[in-house]
């Protein structure tokens, strides 16, 4: 068991292209950290540097307090689960899991004990004699995890392990991974581009973009208090609405003036925070789930009412998404399926201004 520490890590490719631009990260023992971001954000490169599969251009990586920059992957005491599982196609499930231990010259009985133990945790005991070809996607995923578990390493590394699975299986394996982590408690670094995976699995989420860390924090904190426009838009589905607006100083209180002249009051509690931006152009951010139909007896404080005309209505079953265009800005509202909504007909909506965000368009930071 070990902590992992990244000190000003830089990955620079030939020609000076920087994939990772000096990131710092402290991962505690037993912690489950998820690196999330769009493709090309540097998350996989970071993971591969921790694994020792990529050279570190600058900075230091410490595993369990030791600098591992110079240590080859096999001596780092890590285990990795790959996106395409990377099972050895010519070996049985048992041999796949035993291979790492065999190379390390573990005694036979010890190997058997460990493999059987891992097989029990993952419920793949009956597959041990099969070849990977004869396994389903979910079973392959389990074997790949088993290969990591038997090694009992200091750190587990997961590189988008669920992206080759279909949607249903992905949800199932997500729970499985969480369960395994709760059982073995090994420090885990997990890379994904799927923010739902990140939210559901992580103790802490690291949002990366263009080779830098945008924000680190527990899932709920990222959801409620995003630090940047990128995080605000990346976390949550459907994504947060961003509407160009003006913060108007309407006498006693601040108002947000949307395109089309709609004016929404800023809650008093936020007035002080936003005071410095009064009179300036801002981005008004509100999540679809905070832009709903008008409900009777809705006692949420800071509700603002407005009437908008959807152009596309998507019934999803448990909810309906209404797409509204406000002078070029697309706005999505999440309304109850029982509310009659049709394209072209004005719809009364309630905005929960207590959940709003303002973004400075100059810096893209949340104010």
């Amino acid at each position, binding site marked *: 068991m070990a902590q992992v520490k990244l000190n000003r890590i830089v990955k620079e490719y030939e020609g000076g292209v920087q994939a990772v631009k000096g990131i710092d990260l402290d991962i505690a023992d037993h912690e489950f950290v998820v690196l999330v971001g769009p493709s090309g954000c540097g998350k996989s490169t970071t993971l591969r540097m921790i694994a020792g599969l990529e050279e570190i251009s600058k900075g230091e990586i410490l595993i369990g307090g030791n600098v591992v920059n110079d240590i080859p992957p096999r001596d780092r005491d890590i285990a990795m689960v790959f996106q395409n599982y990377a099972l050895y196609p010519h070996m049985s499930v048992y041999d796949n899991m035993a291979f790492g231990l065999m*190379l390390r010259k573990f005694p036979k009985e010890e190997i058997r004990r460990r493999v059987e133990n891992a097989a029990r945790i993952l419920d793949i005991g009956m597959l041990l004699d099969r070849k990977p070809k004869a396994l389903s996607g979910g079973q392959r995923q389990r074997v790949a995890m088993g290969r990591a578990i038997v090694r009992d390493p200091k750190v587990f590394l997961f590189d988008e392990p669920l992206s080759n699975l279909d949607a249903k299986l992905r949800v199932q394996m997500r729970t499985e991974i969480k369960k395994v982590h709760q059982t073995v408690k090994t420090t885990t670094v997990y890379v994904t581009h799927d923010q739902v995976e990140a939210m559901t699995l992580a103790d802490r989420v690291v949002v990366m973009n263009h080779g830098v860390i945008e924000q680190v924090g527990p899932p709920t904190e990222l959801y409620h208090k995003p630090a940047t426009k990128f995080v605000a838009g990346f976390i949550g589905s459907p994504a947060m609405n961003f509407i160009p607006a003006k913060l108007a100083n309407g006498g006693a209180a601040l108002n947000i003036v949307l395109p089309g002249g709609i004016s929404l009051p800023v809650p008093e509690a936020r007035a002080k925070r936003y005071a410095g931006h009064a009179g300036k152009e801002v981005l008004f951010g509100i999540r679809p789930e905070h832009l709903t139909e008008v409900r009777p007896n809705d006692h949420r404080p800071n509700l603002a009412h407005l009437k908008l005309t959807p152009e596309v209505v998507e019934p999803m079953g448990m909810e309906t998404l209404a797409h509204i265009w406000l002078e070029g800005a697309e706005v999505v509202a999440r309304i109850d399926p029982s509310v009659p909504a049709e394209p072209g007909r004005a719809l009364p909506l309630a905005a929960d201004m207590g959940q709003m965000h303002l973004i400075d368009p100059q810096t893209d930071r949340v104010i």
Partner: protein
Amino acid sequence: MSATAATPSAAIPGLGRRIGSLRKERRWALITAYISLIVAAIVMLAPPLYMLLTSLKTSAEISNPVGTPWIVRNPTLDNYWALISDPMFRGFFFNSIKVTVCVVVLTMVISVFAAFSLARMKFFGSQVLATGVFLTYLVPDTLLFIPLYQIVGALGLLNSTWGLVLVYPTLTVPFCTWIMIGYFASIPKELDEAALIDGANWMQMLTKIFIPVALPGIIAATIFAFTVSWAAFVYPTAFITRPDEMPLTIGVVSQLIRGDTFAWGQLMAGALLAALPPVIVYAFLMDYYIAGLTAGATKG
């Protein structure tokens, strides 16, 4: 949609005619295909068949043909027995086996290591070398046999099967390396990385992962090396003039032709016996054989 729904009675007979002509068209295509294939098969198989027929005839039957030469009237295995009991012919066979086994082993060792290195490890100039492999594959043996004749002669290996073992790799190594590069390159990179993390060194990665995973490619390359060295003709014709060092191809062509017409049966029997090993390999491993053949171009 609405148009067809409005006039169903008009649409259906027309449709019926179309289906009928489609079926007819398909049947004609199939008949043409089978006729072409049957004709092709007759043409392709006639020469080996005629060799077989001749090899089963007595010299008397060959020299005094009555009626069609395409049937055997008094089949006999005498020609085969005569060859099998002939120490010179057995010597050809032994020489062919010796040369082929040595060349196949040599080729596979050289090309598997080289292909692994070129496909995965990369070093200064490895790109140039990969192109070089491809180019040498294009150089035919008939361009090289004269300088090689001088070189082999200078090494004192003319009239020796070892001289052949030395030069045959020019025929086999480039192509085998080339297809092995293709097979190795198709192994996903994550597999090496998984092995690296599992603690394998380069040698273990090659022997425990790459060779077993690319086994079909290795079999295909081995078959290629085998058939090429077994069938090689230019080099032994140029370098070997002593019958006791000759491999089968040149042995049969040069030693069994005795100028008189009566040896035809034995000559055909010898040619067939000599052709047997590649044909057997082909019969049992056709899919690998074909994979190897096509890999060169499709992977190129």
